[in-house]
């Protein structure tokens, strides 16, 4: 009889193969590692997965990921509650927070409008956003979507919906990256950087 791994091991390898970027060989290596590593680490991982799946959900106000009904950012009274940043993904909130420049609120769309992939506003949290804006507290919405076709389409679509409500809609500037080289900036970026130039 040909030897196979024990069934439970085979199952673990199968489960790991489903993760993005992990093929059968990597899955096998990870499974062996989980078996040989100390128990605390292995159970810690299992526990962490179980907890995150049970606890993390979308904030009822901004749709960002949170452990609670309403996330800490939405509850924070020290923030500028008239200013709202619209981002595509939860990780973009983190990036904005890292700037330490922005002290307003957020709204996470969980994607971007992509006509070619068949993603429209209904698949995003646009409804929640528009409802929130109707309450009238927010006076400016900043579009912090990616500077690609999907991000532009999303920003343009949202602007067309939000502007009639009398709320100011702005878009982050596009430009040459810090530490980059002009030689490698393409014409579209450079043109936008020029249009948005500042006085020294």
């Amino acid at each position, binding site marked *: 009889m040909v030897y196979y791994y024990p069934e439970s091991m085979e199952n673990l390898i199968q489960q790991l193969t489903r993760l993005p*970027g992990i093929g059968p060989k990597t899955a096998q290596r990870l499974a062996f590692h989980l078996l040989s590593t100390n128990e605390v680490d292995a159970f810690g991982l299992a526990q962490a997965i179980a907890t995150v799946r049970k606890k993390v959900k979308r904030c009822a106000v901004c749709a960002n990921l949170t452990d609670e009904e309403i996330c800490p950012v939405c509850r924070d009274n020290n923030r500028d509650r008239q200013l709202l940043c619209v981002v595509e993904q939860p990780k973009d909130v983190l990036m904005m927070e890292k700037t330490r420049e922005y002290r307003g609120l957020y709204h996470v769309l969980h994607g971007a*409008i992509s006509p070619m992939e068949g993603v*429209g506003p209904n698949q995003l949290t646009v409804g929640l956003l528009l409802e929130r804006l109707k309450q009238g507290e927010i006076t400016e919405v900043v579009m912090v979507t990616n500077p690609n*076709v999907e991000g532009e389409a999303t920003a343009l679509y949202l602007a067309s919906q939000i502007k009639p409500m009398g709320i100011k809609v702005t878009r982050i500037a596009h430009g040459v990256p810090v530490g*980059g080289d002009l030689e490698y900036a*393409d014409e579209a970026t450079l043109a936008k950087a020029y249009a948005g130039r500042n006085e020294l």
Partner: protein
Amino acid sequence: MTGSRLQVLEGLVIRSREYGEADRIIIVFTKERGRVSAIAKGVRKGKSSLSGATQLFSYSRLAFAFGRGSLATVTQGETINSHRGLRESLGRIAYASYISELLDYSLPENKPQESLFILGASVFAVLEVIPEEDMEILARFFELRLLAILGYKPQLDFCSVCGRGVMGGSFVLSPYRGGIVCTGCSGSAPDELLSPGAILSMKKLLEIDLRQLFNFKPGSEIKREMEQATEGYLRYYLEKSTKAKQTLREYINI
């Protein structure tokens, strides 16, 4: 890289999808090789020189390394025309997406399609500058010319079954028959009807020069009839319906 071959090609980026952490998989419509699928590595990191050249709708000069697999690798690139205007209004994004999708579906991999390339490139260039109200007629022009180049040009002179002339009543466009069929022969639902005016307009779009296109202004009813007819016709021959049209119909009038 052993066994790989480097080739510099100019083309339109008709599809661009994020892949992995910082890569992008693109489909480029090139003059010399037709549809080329390729991976551009690291382009979503801010400092990559390829990020502009591999953006959706850009017309770029790209260096491809063709290996054994079906996916080439983009090694260098520069933008020739970024078609910036196409990304600055929702309507233009919608039509450019629609045209890209049709091109994507109708091109075989790695086979030159020069006349289609010229059509695609010129329609893209024009779409960037025309007033938004002219975009619809441009889309109809593109659909019919695409069908003609692919060898599916509809026969619009007489009923494909009984031979009745265009002026003799109402017709429908039947992909199965490869042309118009009079209502007596088809027995179709009345909302798909093509009036003689719509048939003549479609014939005109199949002949007209792109430079003259915008002097031609058919009424909204004729435009609606043409849109319905070409949609079914394209779906039959491409064996797919475009997502762009479905998605965008929900919130702007394409």
